[in-house]
């Protein structure tokens, strides 16, 4: 079923919308949640929470891409859950990714205001669109999907060391970019 049809089912308040979402994007959401939480049980719960959140937000939302929408919700819910559990020693990619990104924005304020977040997202979008497609996709795979370096290397037919180097250079570019944009680094 096409995304638009599924969204229409949500708007019609048909519960088939959830089963169709699960059928089409269940594994995708699970992947995102699992990369963050590193627990199958937690990931399943997050995926179910994702369906609930989509049900509660569509309508009024009418996402152009249901895939990106459910993926983003899964990611947000997973990160929230991760932060709620972060005192526990866990595996997964979050702590590694945070270490990597701390080079770009230091740990001075975790409670940035809404305006600053919007500005940061806007800057990030402009930065990413300016990158070559391959470099951009590698960056998004690492920092949106939290895919492992080994997985990215496999999917992009690269050596892991090359992926690591690629990501390091992109982060350095991002750091310079955000600096020029006036973000307090």
């Amino acid at each position, binding site marked *: 079923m096409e995304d638009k049809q599924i969204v229409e089912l949500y708007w019609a308040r048909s519960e088939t919308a959830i089963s169709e979402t699960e059928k089409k994007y269940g*594994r995708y959401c699970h992947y995102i949640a699992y990369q963050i939480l590193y627990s199958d049980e937690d990931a399943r719960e997050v995926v179910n929470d994702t369906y609930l959140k989509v049900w509660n937000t569509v309508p009024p939302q009418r996402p152009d891409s249901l895939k990106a929408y459910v993926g983003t919700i899964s990611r947000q819910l997973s990160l929230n859950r991760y932060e709620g559990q972060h005192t526990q020693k866990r595996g997964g990619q979050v702590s590694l990714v945070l270490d990597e*990104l701390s080079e770009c924005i230091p740990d001075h304020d*975790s409670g940035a205001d809404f305006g600053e977040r919007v500005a940061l*997202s806007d800057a990030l979008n402009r930065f990413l*669109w300016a990158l070559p497609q391959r470099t951009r996709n590698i960056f998004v795979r690492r920092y*949106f999907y939290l895919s492992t370096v080994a997985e990215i290397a496999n999917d992009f037919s690269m050596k892991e060391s090359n992926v690591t180097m690629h990501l390091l250079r992109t982060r350095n570019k991002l750091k310079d970019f955000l600096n020029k944009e006036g973000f307090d680094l």
Partner: protein
Amino acid sequence: MKNTNLLHAMDNIDPRLILDAAPDIPRKKRVNKRWVKWASLAACLCLIAIAAFTITLKLNDRGDIVDNVLPTDIDHIIWSSELGPDIDSKEEFSEWNGFFVDPSLYDALQKDSDEYIAVMMTRADGRKIEETESDELLAKTLNRDYHNGNLYLFVTRDQFLHWNLDNKGDYLFCLASRSAYEGAVTEGPAEEKDPVTGSLA
């Protein structure tokens, strides 16, 4: 707490960037339920076949003894793992241990001691009875014949009815009238012996 601003900011990137970089998530291999159903059915059939084969083998083990050892052309034979039928009347003796009894055997049993009944013994587990073993078994008290691991005894009616043999369950017995036995076993008893003492007549 580590800075998560940038990590959260990634939530708001353009959906096209998210879609463009989406990983190709391999499908989990689904178990073909139809295949499982047929495999289960096949396994059940195999189990039934094995069980049937095993039972048949066991039955054949017993059957082999009957088929291979018995002088099959003896009329009115009776196989049983037990002795001592109730032969008070011809009507009641129509069946013995589940086997049909021909009236001629009843007649033979009713006659005096000059008419003997042939009793063939063989082991229930199919092993041959050694000729020397037959002496121990029967304490040389009965007239007997020995062919191919089977022991042929000639007993009177009273001996038949009150035969006290240890480990009866280890043996199978075949009954026939003496005349029927002699007509069927070409070698026959080598010598006419006293049926009780075993001495030569």
